[in-house]
């Protein structure tokens, strides 16, 4: 695959950087591609608008930061305002539909929505919303294999929460299999 740039964005504390880390790990360690993760650092990663950039490629990743990400995963309105303007045409945007309003998007974007946080709540822990979103990301974009993502989730989360996280990942994945891009007004 050619250089593909992804950005995950939301509030610090939602597990945004963890989501980027898991995708990067899945791509590089388990799918045997190259991946580079860069991230917000400092106070914003602990409460403000927070983001993680992942670049995936079959060849070496030279420039480490995403420049025009073709996939954007948004989990807060503030992050939406901050990062949407950097999207190229025909980008794929994944949103938590309860946290992000879709009105402002570039009309060429393919926007897919999921109630990730509500689904995580029904699983018992709101904190796994990021993993629900990762399952959704895996099935909608198919940029990283299901198996690699599953392995990366299992080897990254605290052992005591492994099953919960794998369930969250599976639910998001299944939801994504049926997802259609939203019709933008």
């Amino acid at each position: 695959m050619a250089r593909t740039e992804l950005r995950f964005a939301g509030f610090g504390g939602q597990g945004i950087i963890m989501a980027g880390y898991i995708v990067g790990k899945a791509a590089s360690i388990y799918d045997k591609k190259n991946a580079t993760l860069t991230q917000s650092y400092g106070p914003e990663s602990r409460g403000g608008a927070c983001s993680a950039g992942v670049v995936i490629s079959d060849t070496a990743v030279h420039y480490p930061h995403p420049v025009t990400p073709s996939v954007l995963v948004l989990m807060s309105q503030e992050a939406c305002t901050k990062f949407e303007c950097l999207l190229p045409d025909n980008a794929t945007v994944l949103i938590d539909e309860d946290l992000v309003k879709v009105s402002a998007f570039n009309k060429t974007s393919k926007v897919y929505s999921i109630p990730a946080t509500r689904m995580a709540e029904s699983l018992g822990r709101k904190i796994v919303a990021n993993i629900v979103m990762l399952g959704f990301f895996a099935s909608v974009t198919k940029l990283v294999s299901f198996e690699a993502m599953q392995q990366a989730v299992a080897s990254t989360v605290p052992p005591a929460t492994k099953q919960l996280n794998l369930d969250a990942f599976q639910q998001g994945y299944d939801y994504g299999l049926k997802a259609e891009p939203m019709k933008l007004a």
Partner: protein
Amino acid sequence: MESKGAVLTGEHFISGNEACAEGALAAGCRFFAGYPITPSTEVAEHMAERLPEVGGTFIQMEDELASMNAILGAAWAGAKTMSATSGPGFSLMMENLGLGIMTETPCVLVNIQRGGPSTGLPTLVGQGDMMQARWGSHGPYEIIALSPSSPQEIFDLTIKAFNLSEQFRIPVLIMSDEVVGHMTEKVIIPPADDIKLTPRRTPKVSPEKYLPYDPDEDLVPAMALAGQGYKMHVTGLTHDRKGYPVITEEAQIELVQRLIDKIRKNRDKIIEYHEDQCEGADVIVCSYGISARTSLLPIQLAREEGLKVGLFKPIVVWPFPEERIGQLAAGVKAFVVPEINYGQISLEVERCAHGKAEVIQVPHAGGGIHDPAKVLEAIRRAAK
């Protein structure tokens, strides 16, 4: 990382700072003293977690002056030692870095560079400490400094830094930066048996015959460790071969000349660089650390335009590969030197090119890495 061994053989998705710490552990580092400072803190955090697992010692010191002294002291007790810091802490360590040079103490000091001067940009990148690494402590001396461009390189170069520090009995600097320290990538840690380590050069003579500063043929003296039965005196004052202070011009010349020569005359054993398509090039991009990596895309784009562009990347920045730069200067129109400062290594390139090739600086104040378009524009200008 579930294993508790010192060498975590396998593939890991870790940050540059974690990779630096793992490189140190793989090299046999068992003592870390430091004072946390962004953006180097993860090196200390990771060592604090890992050192107790391998029987080592982590101490959070009261400041950077004490940190530097602690790693010197622990080295004299026999340990391989390291500290990590960034700009303001690096400045505070300068005095005792000189003590390490004067007492010929092997240790490794990591600088994850951020934007400066002063407290500058704690969370953002810089490469402004390259000349401070060269001569930031007072007095005449030579130093060894390495510059990694990725988490894998910082792992590999941390091991190399420990080996060089043991081989030449000198503090070795790892001059990394915030982007490399905080980026996360795959790092392959080889089996422990495949990692070549340089042991401490301990005395071959009996305690009665031992002179602590009597050099071997390569100008490096053997180092007895506290508790081995050898008598020693360790001082920052100019000293004779016994280690006793001698405040004369003659003693100064004998000692300092050797401290300089043990690096200069062994430079071929120390210098390492990476070259890509430098033979036959019209333009050579000379860059190091994160800026060498940022240059790869503009170099590729320039080649697609038909320009003959090479990359020269010093892996060991100090001592500087001056002979090679001099040779290359004879065959090129210009060197392009992107770095995140206003011209430090570019001045070295200019010096070593002896006026045979133009040197075009691509400066950056810090806070971000170069826009590839700016480097490409400089390459085009250089090729004219």
